């Protein structure tokens, strides 16, 4: 256990002392938020019924969606250490120790998790500050739930991205993969465009991505209050179709996920990738 934490500590130190990598991780968060404010916001608001408070609901909707994908888009910096270790042969210094393969994987995952949590926390603080300033309805319970949800979100993001990148042997492949993943995940999880506007096939693929489920859970916890506020007294049919189109409620081939089953799905997929990750660490 100590060995795993020592490796994690080392990775986190290497990451945070390299100021440029921290800066670019933060940039990726800030760019997505700016992208939304400058381009997507008006389009999304006008696409929905002109109810009072719709703009604030859409704000809360997009920010909670972004929270769902942040662990995926920001773990590049932390995982970069791992790929560089391998490319430079620096992993030999770890492989000669009596550390088990699972502990080595665990060390890299924990550090990625910590970075994902830190970045999610920064994004959450910025989001809550923005929503609070613009007068979006928020509840303390909802924000606290969001904080708790950040844990499984960062955990699944770091494990899955670790497993995907743990076999790469070049930094070029790594950054290429990351750019692709970061763009793709935003669309698959319905962050930039609502789920309901995507073709059915894409929706099915999107539902298989754990980040979509996390985004849905974040929408419920962080934008739930705004949703209730905007649709108070509205016909239940209308609320239901909005919830489905905007990815508050998600379903896969007729199966409707609730928060519990979504969580089970996320954790099951994460566990699967953890096994893949551990199997990936074999001595050459």
């Amino acid at each position, binding site marked *: 256990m100590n060995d795993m934490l020592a490796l994690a500590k080392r990775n986190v*130190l290497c990451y945070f002392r390299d100021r440029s990598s921290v800066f670019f991780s933060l940039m990726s968060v800030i760019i997505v938020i700016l992208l939304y404010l400058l381009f997507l916001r008006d389009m999304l608001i006008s696409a929905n019924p002109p109810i009072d408070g719709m703009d604030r609901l859409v704000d809360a909707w997009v920010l909670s969606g972004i929270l769902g994908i942040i662990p995926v888009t920001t773990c590049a910096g932390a995982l970069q250490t791992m790929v560089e270790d391998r490319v430079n042969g620096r992993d030999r210094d770890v492989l000669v120790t009596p550390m088990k393969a699972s502990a080595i994987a665990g060390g890299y995952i924990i550090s990625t998790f910590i970075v994902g949590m830190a970045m999610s926390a920064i994004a959450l603080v910025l989001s809550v500050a923005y929503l609070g300033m613009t007068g979006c309805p928020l509840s303390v319970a909802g924000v606290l739930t969001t904080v708790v949800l950040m844990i499984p979100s960062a955990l699944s993001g770091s494990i899955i991205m670790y497993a995907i990148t743990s076999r790469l042997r070049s930094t070029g492949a790594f950054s290429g993969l990351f750019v692709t993943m970061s763009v793709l995940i935003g669309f698959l999880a319905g962050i930039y465009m609502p789920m309901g506007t995507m073709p059915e096939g894409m929706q099915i693929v999107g539902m298989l991505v754990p980040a979509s489920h996390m985004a849905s859970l974040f929408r419920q916890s962080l934008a739930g209050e705004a949703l209730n506020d905007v649709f108070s007294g509205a016909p239940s049919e209308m609320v239901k179709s909005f919830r489905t189109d905007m990815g508050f409620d998600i379903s896969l081939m007729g199966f409707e996920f609730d928060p519990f089953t979504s969580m089970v799905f996320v954790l099951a997929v994460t566990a699967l990738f953890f096994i893949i990750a551990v199997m990936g660490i074999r001595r050459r």
Partner: protein
Amino acid sequence: MMTAIVVEELRKSYDGFEAVKGVSFTVREGSFTAFLGPNGAGKSTTISIICSLLQQDSGRVSVFGNDASSLESRRAIGVVFQDPLLDGMLTVRENLEVRGAMYGLSKDELRHSVEKALEVTDSMEFAGQRYRTLSGGQRRRADIARALVHGPRLLILDEPTSGLDPRTRRTIWDTISRLNREQGLTVLLTTHYMEEATDADDVIIIAKGEIVARGTPAQLRDEYCTDSMTLVPANLQAVERILEGMGVAYDTDKGVVRIGLSRTADAVPIISALQGMVESLEVRSGTLDEAFLEITGEGSE
């Protein structure tokens, strides 16, 4: 006395290239053993298998009686790699603490062993500096401290002095031999400088994936070194007549006569017979460097 390393019939190929072709040797506990060979001879492959970084195709490697792939074996070994592997953004002390913890040391053990490793390698004065700000010699010291942080019984160094200036090379070398003599650490190091191997207790010479010679430096010198005498004759024909009369084999090149000797003392009767016929002469002991080139077949190329 126990053997530190036993290697039996070790083989390893990469993509059809046979890097190590059935190598066997032992390293005595407490010895200072040099593993000598030209680049690409299979040294690093063998070392990597001993450190469990590579899996052999066949053969057996044990370290203090444990299979090289076992956790006990990894705990018993401290490795200094050829290239610097510590983290540039971390201080030397942080690097050691992190590495020590990877060997499962507790906080208290760690504090004690990090200080000890810094001390025996004279790394105390730059322990608080980031690794990337260190000079080449300081880095090497820190690398050795890293290798010692978990208290290994066997120290393996892969070309520890490569890329260092002669003075720094000397001090690193002194540190390593002190660890061997004073701390009783078994040392196995690879080098392609014969000159470095002369300080070792045992020398194992590897070339093209096979062991071509082994022994103490003195044994190797006796066995493989050839002494010689070269002379510039005042009158070449007169000298040649006398040498032929004595039955001495020689060859001439641009007016210089070269005579092979089995030992330098054999030069004395030849010199006295050539009294007054020689302008200058030199008698040379063969060096281990020449022997090494001879043994590994590099000399003829």
